[in-house]
């Protein structure tokens, strides 16, 4: 029973408490780019979830085999393999979605959520918890995308999943489906998530906690003071 609870916890933490998009602020690029419509958001979320589950499972299985020094290139290769598979599946069965997602579908490879979970979770845990973690994070990602996609589609195009919701009463505000609307809605959602979690947003940095490169990055921005000092010296 205890074990089952543990597995459920791995799944549920990704949805709200550690939501990858709104709490950990990972994977911002696809979040902003594909959420112009709710249906694109679902498609992107599903594709990323599939890659996340598969890569988490494989990386967890190989965690004792991959040498520590080359782990990032090894992870990227595994992830890129699964992304290519998903790309082919989407091209074959949902060409309209392929058209809508365009370049952002292959760019799942460099989505920090996937590499971040590989580094933070799958490389340290057994297969089953890793799969549950991947599923939870994927569902959390999809929920956040769906929320953002719905807001932007309803406000910007006056439709939801392509169904007209304005009834001709109000004029939709096109700016919400354009680039500025993406930044704006995302900013407000992060603020709301911070408010609900009762935390101060100030300490939050863009995905640094979950970023696989944070060790190297700490030499740059997270310790920007040092850089500035070195620059002066």
């Amino acid at each position, binding site marked *: 029973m205890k074990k089952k609870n543990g597995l459920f916890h791995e799944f549920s933490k990704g949805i709200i408490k550690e939501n990858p998009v709104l709490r950990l602020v990972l994977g911002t690029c696809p979040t902003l780019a594909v959420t112009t419509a709710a249906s694109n958001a679902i498609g992107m979320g599903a594709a990323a979830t599939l890659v996340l589950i598969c890569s988490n499972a494989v990386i967890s299985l190989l965690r004792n085999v991959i040498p520590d020094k080359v782990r990032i290139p090894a992870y990227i290769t595994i992830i890129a393999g699964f992304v290519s598979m998903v790309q082919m599946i989407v091209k074959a069965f949902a060409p309209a979605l392929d058209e809508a997602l365009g370049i952002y579908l292959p*760019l799942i490879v460099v989505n920090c959520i996937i590499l971040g979970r590989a580094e933070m979770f799958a490389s340290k845990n057994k297969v089953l918890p890793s799969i549950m973690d991947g599923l939870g994070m994927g569902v959390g990602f999809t929920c956040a995308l769906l929320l953002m996609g719905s807001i932007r589609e309803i406000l910007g195009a006056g439709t939801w999943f392509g169904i007209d919701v304005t009834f001709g009463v109000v004029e939709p505000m096109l700016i919400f489906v354009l680039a500025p609307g993406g930044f704006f809605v995302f*900013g*407000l959602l992060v603020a709301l998530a911070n408010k609900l979690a009762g935390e*101060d947003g100030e300490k939050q940095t863009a995905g640094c906690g979950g970023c696989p490169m944070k060790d190297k990055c700490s*030499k740059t921005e997270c310790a920007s003071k040092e850089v500035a000092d070195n620059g002066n010296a």
Partner: protein
Amino acid sequence: MEMLKSLVAVFLAAILTENYILCKFLGICPFLGVSKKLNTAVGMSAAVTFVMVLSTAVTWPIYYYVLVPNELEYLQTVVYILIIAALVQLIEIFLKKFVPSLYNALGIYLPLITTNCAVLGVTMLVITKAEETASYGYAHALVNAFGSGLGFMLAMVLFAGVRGRLETCDIPKSLRGLPITLIAASLLAVSFLGFQGVVDGLFA
């Protein structure tokens, strides 16, 4: 002359109308993470521009002379990310050994660039563009990569200035930090919407 004109059009479009950060949402992580200080913003975007041009220079011939003749186009994603990862390593080693001054300026940013979606994005987008327009060649691809890098730098530098101002403002508690940064980015993106159609108009 016609060629030069189209190159200039591609270059300006890459910087202004197709700005990678503000219009295409590529490379948002470094945009939010490294734009707090002007010198880090410039260093990071210089490194990104450098890697963008070099990786486009390498991946384009590989796509057209290795992958296409062997009907291996579906391996594009895997091959590209590995090439970029290897290239970044190579550049790092090369600079460290032969151009230490450049290494000191860009070195710390290089490892971060492997997983930057703007670099993978530009190498793939130029292939998509070449498939759409027949006259789009290797030179266009390189100019596009360089322009995209400069556009990246433009957005980073402008935003570093905006963030400097934000530091001194009295912001509501839950908007502090990331949310207000995103809202400021949204306003910057509005100003870039104004460039829509400018480049087409210039060369019409």
